[in-house]
């Protein structure tokens, strides 16, 4: 989630109050941001993805001033009419279809504002703009632009002078040679023509969403700007424009409307008219478990920057920069925040409902307690592993297993389908501890199974490994039989097993009514050598699901 850095003096100036870092760090998290830390003259906070309007110092100060009660209620942002026009050409429809724009005048650019705007633009690009794919923003010096501005497309060989470059470059050069081009070229991949924003004299403003032109560079002398937002998402685009223009307005600048002429319609932007949503008082009280009056709810909503009109019901006016209000419940959360999460009295409701653990889990706990009775130590290992550990070191043939396509750790890219290798890994890492090392685990493995909707079945297994100087087949067989005896399962068959991790003639399969429910044996020296274990080791693995099913069936018979 995005973290923004805020200069304390700048923030306090916008707030018009003098507060200490301590006061801010105590109160700000209760408004719904994470306090990330501070230095003497700055602090950083993490803004939740649903509140891009707080990605600027101005937006943060606006919300905070409200929350603290310094300046509550709906802010009225005036949008002045103007003759500025942008033309959206038909060609952009297949490339990057949406466009809106605005003009801002009387800006007093200083260091703080420039820093805040750059930070906000960058964070909006990453979050709301999904790395510029969904939304990208261009800010231009208004002076050199000859209206109307035209949003159209140009072929790759089209040339202009990109921001910060000495000479003109073709669009394909920009994508292959400039850092920004390389970073965002993926968004335009496969397109025959690229988006271009130019003025009526043919001077290029930008190549959205890649780079602006040198022609409209903003500097200290700039006092009026033209903002363009291009997008693949109508809603997100307008939200972003509203967030930016209100940020400038908070610094005293004036907002001017632009007419955006699409082939089939004319849309004026920005549109800062608040949305309306009705809210029932009972809904609020029922969800929060409190008993608030209309007046209280109104006051709390105003603390969160909303306007409230009260006729027969509450009519909430939602500021145009709030992008996250989809449902009445979103308003209820803001009421809860204004009320103070720390003010709610926690209360466990008197709800009676059937309770209990899953029977298989109860069974697994019985198994674990039985195994502890033998003096074995329980391990808890990772389910993710790799083919070397699961097959190669075990001298087992490769089997199809669940595999991740994108693991960041090469060591962990598949999910185990048996448990014994996990135990051997534990033994291989504990050679410096005294023996005997007798360990067990009752845990999950993943078996590919086309019958399942997901193509894989989560299965429970039990495994034991006995590692000491006198460990032998007879011992592991005794343990295996003892476990099964203790479960009261009588009708088992033991057969020689040809599973290749055991010494030939020292592996056995355990079957019940013809079904394989487990195997056990003495591990091959080759396997032990692969794990660098210098101690005779035997192991068993039982299918805990199968054992459980057998027992459940027996019980049903009774």
């Amino acid at each position, binding site marked *: 989630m995005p973290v923004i850095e805020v200069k304390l003096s700048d923030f306090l100036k916008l707030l018009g109050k003098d507060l200490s870092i301590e006061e801010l760090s105590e109160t700000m*998290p*209760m408004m*719904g941001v994470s306090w990330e830390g501070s230095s003497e003259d700055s602090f950083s906070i993490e803004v*939740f993805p*649903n*509140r891009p309007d707080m990605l600027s110092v101005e937006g943060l100060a606006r919300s905070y001033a409200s929350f603290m009660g310094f300046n509550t209620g709906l802010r009225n942002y005036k949008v002045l009419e103007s003759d500025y026009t942008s033309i959206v050409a038909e060609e952009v429809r297949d490339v990057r279809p949406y466009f809106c724009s605005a003009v801002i005048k009387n800006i007093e650019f200083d260091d703080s504002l420039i820093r805040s705007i750059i930070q906000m633009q960058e964070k909006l690009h990453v979050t709301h703009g*999904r790395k510029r794919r969904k939304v990208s923003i261009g800010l231009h010096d208004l002076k050199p632009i000859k209206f109307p501005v035209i949003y159209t497309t140009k072929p790759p060989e089209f040339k202009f002078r990109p921001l910060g470059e000495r000479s003109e470059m073709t669009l394909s050069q920009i994508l292959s040679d400039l850092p920004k081009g390389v970073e965002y070229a993926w968004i335009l991949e496969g397109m025959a023509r690229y988006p271009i924003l130019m003025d009526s004299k043919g001077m290029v403003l930008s190549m959205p969403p890649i780079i602006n032109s040198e022609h409209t560079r903003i500097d200290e002398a700039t006092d009026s700007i033209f903002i363009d937002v291009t997008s693949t*998402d109508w*809603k997100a685009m307008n939200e972003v424009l509203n967030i930016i223009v209100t940020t400038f307005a908070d610094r005293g600048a004036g907002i001017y409307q632009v007419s955006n002429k699409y082939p089939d319609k004319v849309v004026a932007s920005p549109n800062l008219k608040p949305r309306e949503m009705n809210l029932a008082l009972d809904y609020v009280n*029922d*969800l929060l*478990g409190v008993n608030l009056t209309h007046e209280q709810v109104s006051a709390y909503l105003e603390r969160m920057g909303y306007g409230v009109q009260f006729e027969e019901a509450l009519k909430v006016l939602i500021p145009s920069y709030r992008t996250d209000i*989809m*449902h009445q*419940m979103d308003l209820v959360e803001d009421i*809860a925040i204004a009320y103070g*999460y*720390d003010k*709610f009295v*926690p*209360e*466990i*409701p008197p*709800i*009676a*409902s059937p*309770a209990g*653990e*899953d029977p*298989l*889990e109860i069974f697994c706990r019985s198994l*674990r307690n039985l195994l*502890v009775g*033998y*003096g074995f*130590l*329980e*391990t*808890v*290992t*990772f*389910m993710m592993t790799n083919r070397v550990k699961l097959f190669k070191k075990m001298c087992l043939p490769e089997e199809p297993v*669940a*595999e*991740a*396509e*994108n693991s*960041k750790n090469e060591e*962990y890219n598949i*999910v185990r389908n048996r448990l014994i290798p996990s135990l051997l890994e534990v033994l291989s*890492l*504990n050679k410096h501890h005294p023996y005997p*090392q*007798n360990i067990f685990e009752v845990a*999950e493995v993943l078996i590919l199974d086309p019958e*399942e*909707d*997901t*193509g*894989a079945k989560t299965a429970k297994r039990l495994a034991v490994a006995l590692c000491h100087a006198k460990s032998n087949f007879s011992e592991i067989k005794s343990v295996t039989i003892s476990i099964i005896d203790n479960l009261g399962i009588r009708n088992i068959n033991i057969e020689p097993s040809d599973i290749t991790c055991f010494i030939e003639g020292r592996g056995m399969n355990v079957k019940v009514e013809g079904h394989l429910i487990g195997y056990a044996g003495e591990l091959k020296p080759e396997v032990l050598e692969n794990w660098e274990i210098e101690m005779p080791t035997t192991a068993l693995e039982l299918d805990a699901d199968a054992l459980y099913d057998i027992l459940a069936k027996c019980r049903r018979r009774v």
Partner: protein
Amino acid sequence: MNPESVASELHENERKIISLLKDRGELTVDQLVDETGLSRDAIERACDWSETKGIISVSQKKRREFRLTEEGRQYAREGLPEKRLLQTVGDDGIEIAQLKERFHPLDIALAWVRVNEWGTISGGKLKLTTNGRKALQTQVMDEKILHKLMESPMEEELLDEAAKRKITLMLKRGLVDVSEATDKRVKLTGFGESVALSLEHISDEKLITQLTPNHLRYKEWREARFQRYDVTLPAPKVYPGKRHFISQVIDYIRRFWVEMGFKEMKGPILELAFWNFDALFQPQDHPARDLADTFYMKTPYKGRLPDERLVSRVKATHENGWETGSTGWQYKWDPEFASRCCLRTHTTSLSVNTLAGLKESDLPAKFFSVGRVFRNETIDWNHLMEFYQTDGIVVGKGVTFRNLLGYLKEYLERLGLEKFRFRPGYFPYTEMSLEAEVWIEEKQSWTELFGAGMFRPEVVKPLIGFEVPVLAWGPGFDRIVMRHYGINNIRTLYSNDIGQLREAEIWVE
């Protein structure tokens, strides 16, 4: 103390020592080792016990002992260089230049020949003096000492003044090393003498240390005395078979939920993106769904979506809010993306799966789960790609945000946390969303523990068919286990170090 009762409690080794001392007077520990054939360790321990009881007195005496160095041993075998040099000189003397090629180490030999006044050098020629010729005939003192030392170390105490002087020189020359050792001398005290006497009376009786089946079978124990043990002595460590500490904590947490009246929900660790994300109203372009954080599967790549009615509701809710009263995310929902397989990133996938199976008549209902979840993280001291999470949901008309706080407060208190708070948080699928934070005294700051909230109507209604409040939470508890066991590195939780597991205290709550 009564000498007889003391005598009857003696350890076998003490008895051996006492009877030796009675016959021989004072002995060193070395001598006792030689005489008894016991280990030095056993003798020292027995001496300690007897000394504590006032039977023997132990005096310590330092002694200096000389031994040959490697160089010393070489000269003892080959002869001193200066002596060997004498043998090559002959009556007429010898040219130094000539010696340079034949004799080694010439410088050392010449230096000592001169110090001993065995020879003179003039005109580049070495000639023997009378002393030198005499030395050639006899074994000089240095040689005698070398040969003696070759046989055994010499104690300083036993040397005469001349020998001491010589050895001091040899020390400087690096032929001899000195080591300091302490002799422990042991003798019976007056009390010890009487214990030794009583020992004679009882040593005929059978003394039992380890009681054996034969003692019992043949009633031998009736005639025997039992050696009394010093019960304060350390005993060897034993390690029990034991549950892994995480496993014990999981049991505790399960018990907690059951005591609170929750029913367990179960489900697969490999899930459709539909259950992990879409059913939770997470938009398909949400950063949390990125490849970067989630293990998407190569095998199995895709699965089958659940029944069409449910899928179409979820789709409509994402796109336009369906009948939930929401605006929805306003994008085109892609069933292909939802049918991708992934390892569940939270057990909340179980919670929504459970919700989807509920009917109005099942309510109110409370469910919990404890299970493994997976995140595509690079492993370091603070991050793992697998860990446990415990989810809970409470579904019922009239449940409130305050109820949510009530359950969470109880959970945190039962896990032993004292100072915690709830602050606003954000999850795409809850509203109110909150973060539970704990106060870390050492860091003087709040640390996030887990998130919780009330499921959005956009989550609940498509799954269950009607609107009902659902309280939901999904805490991990690794941090709490780490705090309890004083573990700083998260990797240690699952490293299965057998030493750590053997030493780990059991969870007693």
